[in-house]
């Protein structure tokens, strides 16, 4: 898994490539990376999952932990460009009730501004 970070419109964007799974993760996990940005005062986080083919239970745990940490500080965490297959699983497991999933990054960035 490869995570690149950039900023746009006061939003920290994580462009993730590969599979978010335990065996693919490094010692600095996605949640740790999100937390370090929160510790620096950032409050809006966007996970761009365009390059993500698969997520395991560890990956879901990381996304939920990132969501909880951001939400608890009054911030917003959103997802974008998620594959149709993953979206279906997210819907069945009700993750879509919690996670704000946008079709593309531009819409997601706009939705941060509106909020």
């Amino acid at each position, binding site marked *: 898994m490869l995570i690149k970070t950039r900023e746009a419109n006061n939003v920290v964007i994580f462009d993730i490539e590969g599979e978010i*799974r*335990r*065996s693919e*993760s490094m*010692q*600095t*996990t996605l*949640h*740790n990376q999100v937390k370090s940005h929160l*510790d*620096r*005062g950032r409050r809006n986080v966007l996970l761009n999952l365009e390059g993500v083919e*698969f*997520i*395991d*239970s*560890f*990956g*879901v*745990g990381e996304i*939920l*932990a990132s*969501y*909880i*940490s*951001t*939400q*608890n*500080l*009054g911030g917003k965490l959103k997802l974008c460009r998620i594959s149709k297959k993953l979206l*279906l*699983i997210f819907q*069945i*497991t*009700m*993750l879509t*009730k*919690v996670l704000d999933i946008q079709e593309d990054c531009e819409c997601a960035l706009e939705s941060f501004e509106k909020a």
Partner: protein
Amino acid sequence: MANGRLEKFLNRFADVRGHEVHAALYLSGFLFLITFSFSIVKPVKESFLIGLVNPAWWPYADLATALLIGFVVALNARLLNRLPRRTYISVTILIFIGCLLVFWYAFDVYLKSLVSTPVTDSSGGIFFVWIPLAIIKTWPVCVFVFCFWSDVFIAMSVTQFWIAVNDVFDPYQGKRLVGLFVTGGLFGGIAGSSLAALMVIARLISAENLLLVCPIILLLALIMVNLIYREQQHLREAGEVEVNPVQAGARVGYWESFLSVKRSRYLLLLAATLASAMVAGSLINFQFKFAVLKIFPNAGDRTFFLAVFFLGILVISAVFHLAATGRILRSFGIRWALLVAPVLLLAGSLSVFLVSAGALLAWASLIRGGDKLFDNTISQSLRELLYIPVPADIKYKAKIFIDMFVNKFATGLGAGLYWGLYRLSGFAYKDEVVKVREIGILVVVFLGLWIVLTRAVYAEYPAVLKKDIRRKWDEGDNIVRANVDVDLTRDVFDALQSRERSTTLYLMNVFDLVRKNNLTPELKEVLGIKQDELRARSMDCLFDVGGEVLFHDLDEAIADKDLASEIDLIFLLPSYQEIMVKRLAADAGSASEVDRMDAAKLIGLMVRSPETLRFLERFLQDPSPEVVAYALRSAAVHRRAEHVPLILRQLGNPLTALEAQGTLTDYGPGVEDQLKSVLGDESEALEVRRAIPAVLARFGTQRSADILLDELARRRDDVEQELINALYKIRADRPAVRFREKQVRPELLDMIEKSYAICLSASGLAAGGGEAAGPAAEAKVALDLNVRRIFDLMTLLHPPEDIVKAYQNILKGTRKSGDYSLSLLDDLLDRELKALLFPLIENLPLEERALRMKKAMRLK
């Protein structure tokens, strides 16, 4: 005087901020001039009423005011709606000036009896003859008209002042600045009364001629009002202040004012409290009048005494206000400060039954003086504080109704009661002391009512305050818990992942879903499972112990609903256990990660035995985090104490930490002591220690809370955030858990001190500019995190919902909700904590914040 020095000077009286200096000064100047003029009008009115009118007629003045004030309020509302605010106040001041000249003329005519015979001529001189005649013939109507007018003048002037305050400042600014305004008013009163007393004593001027001083003072007030609104207009044009929406859109009718009070229980109670206080005050005034009349039958002496009396009260009020009002409010809070006036007056009023005739004037002066003293100082400030939670638009309407109508109506009611007493009980023939005592019974009743209503108002106060403070966001874990079955989600993703890696693992994960009755048709479709296949393959797999499939026919006999229980039964078979242990032995030594994952998962399904536990121990130390994750879940099933150290070690690995936390949570509070010892052991890995508080928070027991607090008391910065998060979580989820103040408070104060250090360094960095901008921004972030921790700790001592709402609104709310939140904290927290916390959370310039912090630390 330069702005900075002026600000420093004004800060002696109230919390005035740099940008507020001019407006605050003009407004307190305006109130100074208003009270200056009615401090002159008042003794003239009282003197004429007492000396020139029979005591039986005294109440008519107040009754007339009570009956007619409604019309004045309606007229006032019309003017207010139709004229621009600046014009409205200017026009009414000019009308008051005209009225003063007319009354001076009337009193002058009567007292000097200038006209004894009307002279008629054709040039219109008859007007100048009949008018004086009418004044003399209809006497004392003129005195009643003057009394009514002076009541209107005082009520309207004060209401106009607060309207102007409302136009210029928001409610929270008003609350901060009320001390300065009250000071201005008191000094105005002192100046007016002093002037009146000095002029009379020096026989420079007669009582009625004092009225000629007032127009000059009111002209100065007119200039002051125009300065206030001109400055506001300039600031608005420069875009430095927003247009006050209340001022811009306000259309206040008499009826709307009445309805706004009627619709709110809180405002009704507030109006009733004020009314009971005014009735009591009105009756106390009648007691005072009897005492004054008895001692001073001469009008000149009486006017002098009254002028000196009111002056004395104002001087004492000013001293009391500067020395005690703030202290009483800070020390007792609104709750008890509200009781100071009615309780002391009640005690004083009850003493009337012990007072002798000789001490009557001293007693009456003390009670009347006390009533005025409280009214001028603490009651004034408290009234403004009690209006804070009322939305600005409603407050605006309600204030007009309460301050003008209810106030005067209650005074009239007091007069009505006195009138009834006078008419019904042969009052006129009684001794003065008896009269004062009989009125005293009514006073005691209304003071009692005042106390009861005060308690009722305070009971409503926090609820009204909180109504407009809503959560800006919910806790993330609560949202997740309410919407997502986290265990199911984990099982689904595990099943999906394992499908590509191992059939055995896949089916074991599917069985987890079956066992928990979670295998919905939608999920089956996603997992690609067909009903028959599930049954058949599960059995194939379960008995696939080395490639050989046993009991082929069983799959047809087992229905889905029985599947889980049948499998459980099979797992219990000794022969099966024996075979599986062999399989575990083979997999444990396998180089294949998938084989070891299969085995680690399988242990959770097996009966506990020394062999399985030994294998579990081995898998808990496996180099593959995937294997460890499955082993941790199996460990949660068997829950053996000897595995706890291995599980704790996994807390240090970010790839398995969440699983390890879950496993320890499943172990339950029995492992609290082991967690405590690792948490306090600095030789343990930091990540392990940091993960432990979350586990203790999930236990949520009293013991867990005590462990966390003990650890917090050791003041280790490296785990502080996690400890506070966990304590907050326990407080939010387990209301039954108790936190001792003597343990929490030192930590809270320590956290505030740390925040002060950060803030003071940030203000130093900001002053450095340029290169220091980066570190200053970092300090700001660190300060924000610390403030969050302070609020989290405060939830342990105060209602968590209130503290969280206050924090969120101060951080992200509107200006109004932020102000309400500060008021809520003002009500919730004790004096020391408020003094230390407010400089941190109030919206202040850095330099000002630093100054306040240094002051607060000195006080501490």
